[in-house]
């Protein structure tokens, strides 16, 4: 307990003094996980909407695959993205391994199925007759999709939160494709592991607190957007 207490005190001091290394790590985490989440929204929402609204052979299998992808272990993702990005791999020519972009790609593979799967559920939980009603009021196909997504905005924001939560907290993929390189690919999770292994518990606790604060801050903002104007 003493260790935690001491660590927490030093962590607060580190934060108050605005340690430049800690701030750099935090900003990189936000940037990498934010970008991965944004990209997963750009891919996952349209894909999830198509899966929810269309009928085609193999649709059930496609949804099952997406749902399975929601539980992909980050280490496995890290391994396969590494293989793809190795110099001898199919995407090796891009020379992305051990760069923040590589972490974004790996986190996209993690967050993509989460956002897609939750989008399918969000659109499917709407009253199925609403779609016909909108068509009956003269909505074009695009207008129907826009209005359905607007109606499903609450669960879609939950999908966004789940996607961000999944990537900001993962460590396996970031470690494997980013390499935890000082001032280049070190993010909050990988840095926490490193400092813990070094026995620098004050730094490790400071980084953990920052990770919690970052997650809390993002989710408070998203929850505020989600819940404003709603009464129980």
């Amino acid at each position, binding site marked *: 307990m003493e260790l935690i207490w001491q660590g927490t005190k030093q962590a607060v001091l580190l934060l108050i003094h605005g340690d430049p290394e800690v701030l750099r790590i935090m900003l990189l985490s936000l940037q990498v996980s934010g970008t991965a989440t944004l990209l997963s929204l750009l891919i996952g929402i349209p894909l999830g909407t198509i899966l929810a609204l269309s009928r085609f052979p193999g649709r059930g299998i496609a949804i099952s695959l997406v749902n399975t992808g929601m539980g992909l272990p980050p280490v496995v993702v890290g391994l396969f993205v590494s293989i793809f990005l190795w110099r001898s791999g199919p995407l090796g020519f891009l020379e992305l391994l051990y760069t923040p972009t590589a972490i974004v790609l790996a986190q996209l593979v993690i967050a993509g199925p989460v956002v897609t799967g939750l989008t399918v559920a969000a659109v499917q939980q709407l*009253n199925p*007759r*609403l779609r*016909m*009603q909108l*068509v*009956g*009021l*003269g*909505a*074009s196909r695009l*207008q129907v999709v826009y*209005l359905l997504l*607007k*109606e499903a905005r609450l669960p879609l924001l939950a999908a966004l939160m789940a996607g961000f939560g999944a990537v900001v907290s993962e460590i396996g993929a970031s470690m494997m494709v980013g390499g935890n390189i000082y001032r280049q690919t070190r993010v909050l999770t990988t840095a926490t592991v490193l400092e813990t292994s070094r026995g620098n518990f004050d730094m490790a606790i400071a980084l953990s607190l920052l990770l919690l604060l970052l997650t809390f801050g993002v989710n408070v903002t998203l929850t505020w957007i989600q819940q404003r104007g709603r009464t129980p």
Partner: protein
Amino acid sequence: MSGPILCLERVKVTYDGMLVLDAPSFEIQEGQILAVIGPNGAGKSTLLRLLGLLEGPTEGRVLFRGQPVQSYGNLLAVRRRMASVFQEPLLTDGTVEANVALGLRLRRIDSVEVNRRVQEGMATLGIGHLAKRRTRTLSGGEAQRVSLARALVLDPEVFLLDEPFAALDPPTREGLLVDLKAILDKRRITTIFVTHDRNEALALSNQVAVMIGGRVLQIDMPERVFAEPLNEEVARFVGIETILRGHVQSVSQGLATVEVPGWALEVAAPLTPGERVLVCLRPEEITLFPRGATLTTSSARNQLYGRVIRHLPAGSTYRVTIDCGVLIVATVTRQSWEQLDLHDGAEVVAAFKATAPHVIHCA
């Protein structure tokens, strides 16, 4: 006179190989208020979706103002000349005002015009005071008024309603029915109205189509459909419970004698001896007396003796089933039931005039 506004030609709709709608020819005239009635699963809603261009036929074609809808090139443009309202209000999350404006906004009508029409639409449906309310706080009746206003502000050439009152309680339903009738009478919008409630059809429409088993079996003025059904299925659906099979024995001075099992009935109808017919009697056309009582209804030429086998309460009346060798269903007020000391097992006379039955000619 202009041609039909909507027309189905040799239309068939099948789902997974099962025929759910078969409409060789079906027309809606401009200004017509057509109620489509029929039991559940009759294909009424499918017909409505087809007419509203919300789904296409498996076979045949839909014509709007004389032209196949495909020939308009843009189905959306034709669909935007119509408006649909369903059993559930299906409002979007937001204010009443925003919901009423939805269809107008989809058509990219300018804001000033949208505002004018929304205010007018809300006033017409009596929901002006709800303008700023969130839709999820509305009662069922209020929500359905918003749904109707949302469709009516579009000034549709064809207005399609799929059981819009089915989920409402009776007083709310009645109020909305009265208001909607006033609006439709005033604006003369071509309306197709699906219901399984015969009273709603009578109250709102100037034409009634009866659908059973995916086919339109009769289409006519409401009074005629209810008084003169074309066949046994329609007769049963429009509330005729006593249908007796028989054949015409003789005809004399416009009065036919029809033999039904155990009885010879006198029927005032243009019939030919030897013809096979169905004699249809509405419950309210039959008067009941205890056996042995002096009959006061001298014009009741038909008097069948039988025994009450059951009675079921139906509002202020009883629906009484009498076994006269054939089963006859009559309606008796609760007051008469008590005054005449009727009860299950009582011996009674079921009397009706020769003009009371509707006769269906059998093929």
